[in-house]
């Protein structure tokens, strides 16, 4: 990782105060001159992970580009809660067109900037997991394949939350959604379905792919910084818990993001040109039950040994596949 890692195990937590870091290593969010690209006053639910993810990512991109970012937004929560006319929470130029075309809108803006000799202006396209992994997937793959100079950010809250919590191809096995109800012999979303878009992005051999989580700001900001330091198609998928859709307490949002990482459910890694270049290690694997329990969408899973072990197996597989467990010193 490009950022200074501070281990602060004495407190029993991984949170680290900025004051322990060199001034240059402090987060963008901790600086007084952050751009507040997604400003206060928006209508997100209490404890919205997506609002945090978007704010962290865009503020970092703004700092890396001297505030020269244009954003294209897919239809979804992020679009709705930040805008209805005549109000807007965006302090950067921002466009919403459709649900499934944010990557293509990004391509168009980047092309316009290139033809006008304004390549100092950088483009971010963004959307939720439905807009990215499902309906926007064709446009996303096209943008990757052409290596268009766009950073696409997927805020992954594992379902169609804006339309009332339906299943997307990012919804995990077992999860209750309005279209995968916890009824019948296999309650909740089916296992062994869905797609891993970060790995699919890597298969396009684009310059940069990363996963991030809102619980670790330094890691997330470092990945956005890295993404903005390269040209071409880049993809970042940020894990953003959704209290409304997950049935979790708003105060648990950051904690759930942390537990997803520490259980192995949400592996953090970076890839360049199709190869994994780094993983963010876990000090000690947390049982998935700890991650599942605070979420009502998994209430039936934690009581169902078969489903619980299926979730645990997914986490264990991630740990093995990405070599997530830290070498014990």
């Amino acid at each position: 990782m490009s950022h200074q890692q501070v281990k602060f195990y004495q407190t029993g937590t991984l949170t680290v105060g900025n004051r322990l870091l060199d001034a240059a290593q402090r987060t963008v969010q901790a600086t007084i001159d952050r751009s507040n690209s997604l400003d206060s006053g928006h209508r997100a639910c209490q404890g919205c992970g997506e609002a945090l993810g978007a704010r962290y990512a865009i503020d970092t991109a703004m700092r890396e580009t001297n505030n020269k970012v244009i954003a294209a937004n897919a239809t979804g929560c992020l679009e709705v809660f930040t805008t209805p006319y005549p109000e807007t929470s965006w302090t950067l130029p921002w466009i919403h067109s459709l649900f499934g075309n944010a990557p293509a809108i990004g391509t168009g803006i980047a092309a316009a900037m290139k033809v006008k000799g304004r390549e100092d202006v950088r483009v971010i396209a963004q959307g939720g997991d439905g807009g990215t992994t499902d309906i926007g997937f064709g446009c996303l793959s096209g943008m990757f394949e052409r290596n268009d100079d766009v950073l696409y950010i997927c805020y992954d809250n594992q379902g169609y939350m804006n339309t009332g919590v339906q299943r997307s191809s990012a919804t995990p096995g077992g999860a209750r959604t309005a279209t995968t109800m916890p009824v019948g012999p296999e309650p909740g979303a089916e296992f062994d379905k869905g797609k891993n878009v970060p790995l699919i992005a890597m298969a396009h051999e684009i310059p940069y792919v990363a996963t991030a989580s809102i619980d670790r700001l330094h890691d997330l900001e470092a990945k956005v910084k890295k993404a903005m330091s390269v040209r071409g198609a880049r993809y970042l998928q940020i894990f953003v818990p959704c209290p409304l859709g997950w049935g979790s307490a708003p105060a648990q949002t950051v904690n759930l993001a942390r537990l997803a990482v520490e259980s192995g459910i949400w592996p953090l890694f970076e890839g360049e040109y199709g190869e994994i270049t780094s993983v963010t290690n876990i000090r000690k694997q947390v049982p998935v039950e700890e991650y599942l329990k605070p979420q009502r969408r998994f209430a039936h899973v934690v009581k169902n040994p078969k489903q619980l072990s299926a979730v645990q197996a997914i986490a264990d597989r991630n740990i093995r596949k990405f070599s997530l467990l830290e070498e014990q010193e």
Partner: protein
Amino acid sequence: MLKQIEGSHGVSEAVALCRPEVICAYPITPQTHIVEDLGALVKSGKLENCEYINVESEFAALSVGIGSSAAGARTYTATASQGMLFMAEAVYNASGLGLPIVMTVGNRSIGAPINIWNDQSDSMSMRDAGWIQLFVEDNQQAVDIHIQAFKIAEALSLPVMVCMDGFILTHAIEGIDVPDQKQVDKFLPSFTPRQILDPENPISIGAMVGPEAFTEVRYLAHQKQKEALKLIPKINEEFKQIFGRDSGGLISTFNVEDADTVIVTLGSVIGTIQEALDEQDENIGALTIRSFRPFPLEAIRSALKNVKRVVVFEKCFAVGIGGIVANNVRMALSGTNIEVYEVIGGLGGRPITRKSLHKLFKDAVKDNLETVTFLDLKKDVVERELKREKELLQSGSVAENVLRDVGVVNAAKTT
């Protein structure tokens, strides 16, 4: 300078003369030659300062165009048929956002059954999408109207479709006067967008509007189309001053002043109709609609005020009711006693023959037409299939059965 070139090639040269900054290309017959030629112009360096993007679908083609147009680049794309339907959501979005994109439609039918040949169902499927739709008669007009289209689009901040009949125009080679760059530069100023994505002046584009303002926003879109009714003839005049050619404005009329009967149509078929009219003795006039959206109600009403009957000849229809153009013409003539007949012909590329037109003209002047006529409909084939469906529950594919009955394939007729 007159050149013997293919219609598509003429259009690509005209578009290049308009100095587009972003071109999105996706192949679909019959518009493909246009974007192919433009690709070569960009790649060879003949068309400078232009990004040519090979996209993965028509939905992406227009979406990339929405992004580039919103960021201030003069933007062009082309499509047809299924491609138009595949980009439908973006078609509405581009006009809703007020983005002056110019798009050629190489008019083609829509499946199923899949059919690559010409009719105008594709453009008609988007007639209410808020775009300006200009239909051209021939390839000279295709060239001239494309140059005017950018000016109209940018003046109104609205997208424009230039609709040209697939194959009949796109693939026809004829003499075209392609203007020179100096003339086009004089006619078409550089693009100044009404609003733009710019880090120095950040705005939010495309946010939600609720019931408190939606009606007014939509009404203003309607109002803007009405403005176009004045602007299209004005820009045609400006074009005439510089280039010396008249593209006709909203409509063109031929001998309507002292005719009892007028054939109303749009697109290239007006040429066929005029030729057929010249060969017979009935006193029949013709009117072709250049601007289908906005629809020139006043101009049509005024042009047809003295006629007894109107025959609307169209290459499309609204299944379940009848002619699309005819219904629009009826609105223009409402309150008059003018009889309006609908004739649907040329579907899926069926030839519109001199013989059929002559019969049609004879029937028309005698009021010997039904309200809706399908030109050259093979009634025996239709009856046969209807009978088959009545008799058999699993009667199979209508398309296949009809094709067998028509006998174009060397196959045994079905029972």
